């Protein structure tokens, strides 16, 4: 039965990703007229002359950074003023400064780490105009940057126009898909209203305040755009965000859909579909492996009940019954393979070893990954894989008919090391000081895992958490805010710099001695690079956290 569930949840997005990838390629094609309808003419006027310019990789990145800076500024302003802005039926007050910084960084970087609880702190204006807006444009930023990377690897020194790419992804990919998913969720029973909270008198005579709001609109894009930031504190475990088995299915298949399609988009833009298929299968294999392990580990009962008169069942702490058994484990694996970070169970209450599965996904951060940026991360592993192969046969390594030389390798290694550096240094500092040690809920190794998870999630731009952590403090808000920004922009800038530098080189003819990047052998190379590098970098903390937690609680 679990095998069937896995098939059900993973096969549909895989199937849908093929036509979606084709469609996305057409939308993003700079020479296509498909985007020249009335809407885009209107937007072209909005954007001004800047939209007609074909940019080199530097200019493209500068535009991207400008737009992201404006995104950041606009949201800081909206959040700081939410108590005087409209659409605030429950009278939510102003937010604390470090929380505003953290939230803005979190949504600009497509992370959606939430140190607030939506129904407690956010007005409907903030939820829609600030956060939902960022969920669209941050996802669109990722798709745009991957399109630029692919064009550079196809040999173009002019990689497109950031504003045009960003607008097209928002208008023609994210908005239509979100409308479809949001409407399905509305039919499935998800609330969508501007009315404020209502008071109920329960059957026993107590009062229950029921928070609600424009939930469906936000849930759709947070699932599709690998954002993950929910309307309510407990995200998609909340019955209003996720009322049934069916809505759970729709939301879960929305998580990897676009990220999967971006792999095909990359293949089409570079004209290397077989290569894309090789990478896709490596990612898919890792995803299935991860989900399978989570399913297996999470079917064990809660260890704390040993010896008590409680029926033996799979671990139900932090889970909702209506999604059915096993679906929480699959979701936990998928949401951390991609950098989505929405949850349908509390990850802090997963069985000790199961906690390793989401952590591993965020450490590797290439199993489809965030929309656009997932493949950009994978590009770094590909470059490293190509380099290792080149060294083994004693040839200058090549990728996409361009030589990979010292300059590119320096940048690639830097990009590779940023991620573990942010996680390990952050965890070390917070675990050894009261900044972190004073904020954990669970004791011992499990508490250490809470800290480790928070930094992994921030650096991977994931956004899920071991939520027992009391993370709405100034040190946490500032530290994870900075980690999210560095963990977002460095791994976009460096790969584009590599691709830009490669595009400027003379193409080398592909001969019989060229390393083939479209064979099963290359899949093994990539799988090896990903697993070995990931394992070497993070093995020590994995042992200190989840493994120690398992050994200390489960062996008697």
């Amino acid at each position, binding site marked *: 039965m679990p095998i069937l569930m896995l098939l059900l949840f993973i096969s549909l997005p895989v199937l849908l990703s093929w036509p979606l990838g084709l469609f996305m390629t057409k939308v993003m094609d700079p020479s296509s007229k498909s985007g020249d309808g009335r809407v885009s003419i209107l937007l072209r006027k909005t954007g001004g002359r800047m939209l007609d310019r074909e940019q080199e990789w530097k200019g493209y990145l500068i535009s991207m950074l400008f737009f992201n800076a404006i995104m950041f500024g606009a949201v800081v302003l909206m959040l700081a003023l939410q108590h005087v802005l409209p659409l605030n039926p429950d009278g939510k007050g102003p937010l604390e400064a470090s929380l505003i910084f953290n939230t803005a960084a979190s949504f600009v970087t497509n992370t959606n780490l939430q140190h607030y609880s939506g129904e407690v702190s956010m007005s409907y204006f903030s939820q829609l105009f600030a956060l939902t807006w960022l969920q669209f444009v941050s996802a669109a930023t990722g798709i745009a940057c991957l399109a630029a990377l692919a064009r550079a690897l196809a040999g173009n020194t002019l990689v497109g126009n950031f504003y045009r790419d960003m607008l097209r992804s928002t208008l023609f990919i994210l908005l239509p898909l979100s409308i479809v998913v949001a409407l399905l969720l509305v039919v499935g029973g998800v609330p969508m209203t501007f009315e404020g909270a209502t008071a109920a008198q329960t059957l026993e005579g107590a009062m229950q305040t029921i928070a609600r709001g424009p939930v469906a609109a936000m849930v759709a894009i947070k699932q599709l755009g690998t954002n993950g930031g929910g309307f309510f504190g407990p995200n998609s475990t909340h019955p209003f965000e996720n009322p049934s088995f069916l809505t759970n299915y729709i939301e879960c298949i929305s998580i990897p859909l676009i990220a999967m399609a971006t792999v095909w988009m990359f293949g089409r833009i570079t004209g290397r579909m077989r290569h894309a298929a090789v990478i896709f299968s490596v990612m898919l294999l890792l995803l299935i492996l991860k989900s399978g392990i989570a399913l297996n580990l999470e079917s064990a009962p809660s260890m704390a009940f040993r010896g008590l008169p409680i029926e033996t069942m799979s671990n139900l702490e932090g889970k909702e019954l209506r999604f059915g058994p096993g679906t929480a484990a699959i979701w936990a694996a998928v949401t951390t393979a991609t950098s989505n970070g929405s949850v349908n169970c509390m990850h*802090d209450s997963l069985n000790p070893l199961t906690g390793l599965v989401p952590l591993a996904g965020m450490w590797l951060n290439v199993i489809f990954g965030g929309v656009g940026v997932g493949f950009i991360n994978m590009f770094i592993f590909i470059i490293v894989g190509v380099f290792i192969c080149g060294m083994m046969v004693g040839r200058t390594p090549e990728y996409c008919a361009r030589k990979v030389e010292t300059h590119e390798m320096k940048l690639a290694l830097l990009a590779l090391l940023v991620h573990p550096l942010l996680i390990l240094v952050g965890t070390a500092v917070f675990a050894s000081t009261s900044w972190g040690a004073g904020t954990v809920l669970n004791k011992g190794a499990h508490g250490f895992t809470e800290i480790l998870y928070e930094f992994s999630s921030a650096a991977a731009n994931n956004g899920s958490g071991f939520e027992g952590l009391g993370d709405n403090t100034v040190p946490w808000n500032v530290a994870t805010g900075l980690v999210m920004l560095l963990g977002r922009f460095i791994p976009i800038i460096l790969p584009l710099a590599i691709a830009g530098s490669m595009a400027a080189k003379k193409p080398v003819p592909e001969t019989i001695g060229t390393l083939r990047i479209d064979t099963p052998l290359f899949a093994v190379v990539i799988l090896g690079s990903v697993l070995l590098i990931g394992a070497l970098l993070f093995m020590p903390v994995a042992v200190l956290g989840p493994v120690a937690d398992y050994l200390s609680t489960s062996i008697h």
Partner: protein
Amino acid sequence: MKKTIMKDTAPNLAASLRIALATIVLCGGLYPLIILSFAHFATPETASGSLLRDRAGNVVGSRLLAQAFTRPGYFWPRPSAVKYNAAGAGGSNLSPAGPEVRERAEQTVADFGADSRRPLPADLATASGSGLDPFITLKAALFQAPRVARARGIALSDVDAAIRRHADTQKIFWSREGLVNVLALNMELDTVQKK
């Protein structure tokens, strides 16, 4: 590099500002309005929170949210780490192998009067992720049926029949046993007895 940044600052800033404004209106305003108008006409009841009302029209809760039940004549929902606060939901976030979960479970076992001959269904011993899970398993409902029947002074078979009727409407396709919506079941028992 520096020259490019300087030269293009003004047009970049202008384009970014204008496009930001346009997308804010589109994604933050227009898009939710489309969904809202559809919801308003197609699913007015669930769109405003699946609220349940008594005969006088007062809101007693939401079909989708658990609420606190402590009297023996009512079915009790799963434990909630947030005391069924529907304006601040959340899970326990406790390790399922930790001492806190064990202590809580010992208390719950005592509250439900479970023992080794009649073990407690696991869903009643675990806090849900949202603290608002409206369902319990069929087993968990049948487990509580004798207490409810005794407190209400009605036949156990009548309570069992009501439970099975509710469970039949909440079957997930692979499971033979459905789930029971606690609030809906309790409301039905109240109405039946008032008649």
